[in-house]
């Protein structure tokens, strides 16, 4: 008859610890509205703790490294004793365990925030994890009071968008930019996460458009989806051509100027633009035409005077103009700029936006993201307001003229509009869901009546 192997005192102690840890975690999971039996699954339990703690990425890392550790420990006994591979595998196990502990500490740190407890609990967890989970699981004083409160700007996008009913969006525009974005999602360990949802608008040509929204509202994600760089479940048409279907051609008709001046500092202004022209202009464009175009762009942006100077020697405003010039070379139909005025003073910023206004009114669509819109608000023809809904998903809260926007939100300035849709934790009014629903209703009304419908703003909203 087989006999049970005799356990040492240390093994008994470890076994009791493991049982207590599971019991404590079970209670803690239940306290946080999760299923208690998750505590029984090594790896996955830290993933769930990561979710509870608002540190999902760290939770995912814990899960991955726990699996890696498990696999390595399974493989370890198979390797011949005292061989070189055994030594290397032991080293890898050690490294994996160290990394795992770091990620677990991050999760526990987040858990301290969720339970509104001091960080020294991490030390308790480090030596007596079972004890900490027992206390946090069983004692009533320990409650997840900050569950769902964002402590981190990089928090993953939500899985449950705020529900809004939209009308049909099947019309096709032959000119301008038409955006019919159903959703932009990412797959995160089998979970569908929404970055953007239900964004529909059509911008006519000759428009300078302001893209407004708080941090994390999805402005850059929308821009990347519109230019086809990160494709979404959407139909994007630029002057009637489908951007996604003809991306190889369309990418040359779209200019995107990033927020940072991504330029090689040790090249001259002229050479920078010259190389940009070679890359962006079709081969059919002759050398003479190409040179003329470079000169034209330098003239428009006021770069001719210092064209032989190194980029590194130029001021912030000049670098910004070089960066814009690189994209302007190809005379794009759609021109998108991410905070082109960051680091520029009021006068230079105004000059820049006036130039962008002129570019837009030469038959183009120019979209800009800026955090200081009010100093140039009169130059914009349209405003797009994005907001992060209660499900942490980027949504369209408004699209229309600046005057209509002020009326819609009941605010005097663009910055006040951003504050209205920003979360309360960010100092905003936390009214994103309200305006998303209101705009969807307005849009649906417009579609059914085929005429613009003014929305009444109540006194409360004002």
């Amino acid at each position, binding site marked *: 008859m087989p006999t049970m192997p005799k356990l040492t005192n240390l093994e008994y102690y470890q076994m009791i610890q493991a049982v207590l840890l599971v019991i404590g975690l079970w209670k803690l999971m239940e306290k946080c509205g999760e299923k208690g039996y998750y505590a029984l699954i090594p790896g996955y339990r830290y993933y769930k703790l990561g979710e509870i703690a608002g540190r999902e990425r760290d939770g995912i890392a814990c899960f991955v490294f726990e699996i890696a550790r498990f696999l390595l420990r399974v493989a370890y006994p198979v390797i011949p004793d005292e061989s070189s591979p055994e030594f290397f595998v032991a080293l890898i196990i050690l490294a994996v365990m160290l990394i795992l502990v770091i990620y677990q500490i991050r999760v526990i740190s987040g858990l301290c925030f969720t339970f509104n407890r001091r960080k020294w609990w991490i030390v308790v967890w480090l030596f007596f994890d079972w004890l900490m989970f027992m206390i946090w699981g069983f004692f009533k004083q320990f409650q997840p009071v900050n569950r769902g409160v964002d402590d981190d700007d990089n928090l993953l996008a939500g899985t449950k968008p705020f529900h809004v009913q939209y009308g049909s969006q099947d019309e096709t525009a032959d000119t301008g930019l038409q955006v019919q974005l159903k959703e932009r999602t990412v797959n995160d360990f089998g979970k569908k996460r929404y970055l953007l949802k239900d964004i529909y608008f059509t911008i006519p040509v000759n428009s300078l458009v302001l893209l407004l929204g708080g941090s994390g509202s999805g402005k850059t994600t929308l821009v990347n989806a519109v230019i086809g760089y990160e494709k979404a479940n959407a139909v994007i048409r630029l002057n009637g051509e489908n951007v996604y279907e003809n991306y190889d051609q369309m990418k040359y008709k779209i200019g995107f100027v*990033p927020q*940072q001046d991504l330029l090689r500092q*040790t090249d001259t202004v002229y050479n920078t633009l010259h190389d940009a022209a070679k890359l962006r202009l079709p081969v059919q464009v002759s050398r003479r035409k190409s040179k003329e175009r470079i000169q034209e762009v330098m003239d428009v942006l006021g770069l001719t005077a210092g064209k032989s100077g190194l980029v590194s020697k130029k001021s912030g405003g000049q670098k910004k103009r070089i960066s814009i010039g690189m994209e302007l070379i190809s005379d794009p139909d759609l021109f998108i700029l991410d905070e082109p005025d960051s680091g520029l003073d009021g006068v230079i910023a105004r000059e820049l936006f006036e130039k962008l206004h002129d570019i837009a009114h030469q038959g183009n669509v120019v979209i800009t993201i800026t955090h200081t819109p009010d100093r140039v608000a009169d130059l914009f023809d349209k405003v797009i307001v994005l907001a992060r809904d209660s499900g942490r998903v980027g949504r369209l809260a408004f699209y229309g003229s600046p005057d209509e926007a002020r009326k819609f939100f009941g605010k005097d300035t663009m910055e006040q509009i951003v504050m209205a849709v920003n979360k309360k934790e960010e100092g905003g009014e936390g009214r994103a869901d309200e305006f998303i629903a209101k705009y969807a209703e307005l849009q649906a009304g417009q579609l059914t009546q085929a005429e613009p419908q003014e929305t009444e703003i109540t006194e409360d909203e004002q």
Partner: protein
Amino acid sequence: MSSKLRYRGRIAQIGIYLGKLFRMFIYQNDWKVLPMAALIAGLVTFAVGNNIFKTQEGTLSGCFSLVCVCVWNGFFNSIQVVCRERPIIKREHRAGMHISSYLAAHMIYQMFLCVLQTAILIGVCRMANMQFPEKGLVTGNFTIDLAISLFLITYVSDILSLAISCLVHNTTTAMTVMPFMLIFQLIFSGGLIPLEGFAQKLTNLTITKWGLNNLCTLGDYNSQGMVTLWNTVWKFREMEIEGTKPIKLFTDEILRKNMLDQVLLDSGKYNTVADYTYAPATIYTCWRNMVIIMVIAAVVSVLLLKSVDKDRR
């Protein structure tokens, strides 16, 4: 509907980036790698002395030092070149740049740097009166054989370093990874620290192993004398055994009969290494393996850099 426009393809883009890189060579600090290479070569030749290509010990340590100089030069040439401008690459990729063209331009430019560094290294060795064997094993000219070998070691290290630069996202990480890579290359060269089993198999992945095999073969290591045995015996000359000094008698007899060179050569024969067999095939194997490492590193570089689009903003 507009007619289809053609934009510059891969080959044309290589030209654009090559022009940019050569301009950078002048404007930026890239030219500084050349005096740096001369300085390092000078220090190493000074330390190696004149024993290289004369005795097995001198050849081994000298060749190892030359390999180290090449690996060092190669690593430093390109460890930061990609990661320092990753956001710019992302922007240009979005605007139609081909990653393969961008990296091909870098590889051609780095080849130019490595050729110059190899020429400097050989020039410095010559200036330091390092005695080269008269005959080359592959081309018949030792200097040309050595130049090809040193160039390959430098260039392969350079491309490996380029792959690391494509993998990491910033210069801080690159400079953290580089010492680790250097240590791996030096320890697992198999030349200085004897390795066995699994560790010995790992040496096949290093540039230093093939570089060292290459240079030791070129220098005809196996037909040289070994001085370690004689030097050790010499230290025991005064040792007395029952009132006599047998080791002193033995060494004096060898010197009296003018047999020292023969003894050194004979002791060298017992210390031959199969990997250093003096034959063109050995050199070709080393060159081939280094080229394989280079090709793999180049392909990996392109694959790694394709992920630049996924970089967080």
